């Protein structure tokens, strides 16, 4: 794969959330507003890029038996730095994201890319792979966050776009959007739409209802 491919394919073709189904938990939690979703996206992308680069640099020196511990240590160090930066320069945002920045360490996406890619590829592809996956993740998060914030409150990035009924307007916010399950539904719809658009991403169950003579598959 060319270097450009590493960056482009995780956007749609190999999107970490819609195809690999990784990192869903944070997609649920931080997408109530667009600003938190953006902050989380940036934080995760930075972590992915840096961890991808560092782990790739050290890949020949990490003993296989303790590689997971080493990877977590590296990722945790990066995350702690980012957390401190957020607390220092964006304190309100850090309060709203609360524990979810720290939980980037456990995000399966980060460890998944480290294990699947950074451990066996040189630095430049690993960095770009991290960047691509981060961008793919960000794409989904920003989409979900936009929908949830707009339909849940009528605002985007805190800027009120439509007047709600409570303020004397016409827009009735959808209370469901402020709850976590709405993110599940929206993600489900996104996955569905992507797989209609790109049939090669479809997964087939082991057993299906048959309609032809031997049409089990």
């Amino acid at each position, binding site marked *: 794969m060319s270097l450009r491919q590493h960056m482009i394919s995780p956007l749609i073709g190999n999107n970490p959330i819609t195809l690999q189904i990784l990192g869903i938990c944070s997609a649920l939690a931080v997408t109530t507003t667009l600003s938190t979703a953006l902050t989380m996206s940036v934080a995760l992308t930075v972590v992915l890029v840096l961890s991808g680069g560092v782990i790739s640099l050290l890949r020949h020196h990490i003993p296989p038996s303790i590689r997971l511990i080493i990877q977590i240590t590296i990722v945790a160090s990066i995350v702690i730095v980012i957390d401190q930066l957020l607390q220092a320069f964006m304190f309100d945002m850090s309060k709203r994201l609360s524990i979810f920045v720290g939980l980037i360490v456990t995000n399966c996406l980060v460890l998944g890319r480290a294990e699947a890619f950074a451990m066996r590829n040189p630095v430049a592809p690993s960095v770009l792979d991290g960047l691509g996956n981060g961008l793919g993740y960000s794409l989904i998060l920003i989409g979900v966050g936009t929908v949830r914030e707009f339909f849940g409150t009528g605002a985007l990035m805190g800027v009120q776009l439509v007047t709600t009924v409570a303020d004397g307007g016409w827009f009735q916010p959808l209370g469901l959007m402020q709850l976590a399950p709405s993110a599940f539904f929206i993600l489900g719809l996104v996955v569905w739409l992507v797989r209609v658009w790109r049939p090669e991403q479809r997964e087939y169950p082991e*057993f*299906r*209802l*048959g*309609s*032809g003579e031997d*049409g*089990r598959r």
Partner: protein
Amino acid sequence: MGSSVFPGLQRDRAVAPAQSIDAGRPVKRAALLGVDMPGLRPRLLCAQGDRVAQGQPLFYDRAHPVINFTSPLSGVVQSITLGPRRTLSALVISAQTDADVSDSQSVMAPETDPVDASSAEKLRAALQAKGLWPGFLTRPFGRIPAPDAQPDAIFVTATADHSHAPDPRIVLKACGQAFSHGVEALTLLTEGLVHVCQTPGPDLVEGSHERVRSQVFESGPATGLAGHHIHLLHPVDRQGQVWTIGYQDVAAIGQFLTTGSVDPARVIALTGSHVRRPRLLRTVAGAYLPDLIEGETRPFAKSFAPGDPKPKSASAAVLSGSPFSGRAAAWLGRYHQQVTLIDSAPERRSPARQGLLNWLWPGQAARERAGPGPLVPIADLDRELGFGGPAVPLLRALSVGDAEAAQRLGCLGMVEDDLAAVSMICTSGADYGRMLRHVLDELAADA
């Protein structure tokens, strides 16, 4: 039988057959059918145009050369059609036109010596040579057993699988001692028990061998089938094997051992709303059905007397077998006890509707193309499955071809007939018997 509120099992508009045995119209042709022995590859002993006598071996199983298949009629081999992969499709024998017409009836063969069946090996050899071996079917899988297979038990089915099938007691009364003689001989074939599953009434095998057990079951689609009996008395799994045999085949065995000749006759019930006089007939297995039912159908008239069960359509579909498990055929199946004439399904009368109308109300063809519908778990499903267990999980496993789940739920003890009643009432319209066969073939291949 059947739920009395709203549609359940078909409350038969047809009249039950009179339980008295008539001589059936002599048939001019009979056939040995490949569907009765699926997967069997024959090695032919005759060719088209050969003269054959009744009881003469026509072919044997290529996999087990000692198992012979004999002719039910004397006559000429009219045609031999092979099916896919060199299996048999049909072997048709046409009766001699100038021969004794009663050849196709049950006739007492000239007196010959009783057969020496003192040991199991001699009995097996005699049965296999004379074409009586295919009367046995194994469980699991429902196939003709291998010549040297040892069953853990044998089940004699002397119950009827449908309310319009012949009453076994009436048929056996005409057989005399042959039935009990046959049952005693069966004890040589197994070291386990021989269960004689009969309808309530005087014991058919009173005072018989110590390993013969009488079991009482009601006739009917859920309780009259061998699968139900096996499930209750001797459930099978992968390891064991039991055999089932019908009561008429046992009587034939008994008579063969006494007289040395095989009587190919078989008593079936002619039933259905298109039959003028439903009753029992004596004919041969594989009989050509249009010959048998000639003159038996009632003319379709616009008006009938009130209370007279009248057919709904002018044309009749001829089913070999009961309305639940039969097949539309021109020949009587080897294991069938009934011939049913029902209304045939209407042809697609109107031309295919176009465009939006067809999309909103698709016709029959589109429905068929779509495949089975959804399975609504109504209460009747559990009742019509004669296996006591939960029906819906089994039907779901069969619908998707999940052989492992179906086996866990006990599908190894079933054959197609056991699911016929359920298929009749399930909303999906699926043929669960066919699905079961698909799963059983997969399990047999894994064995």
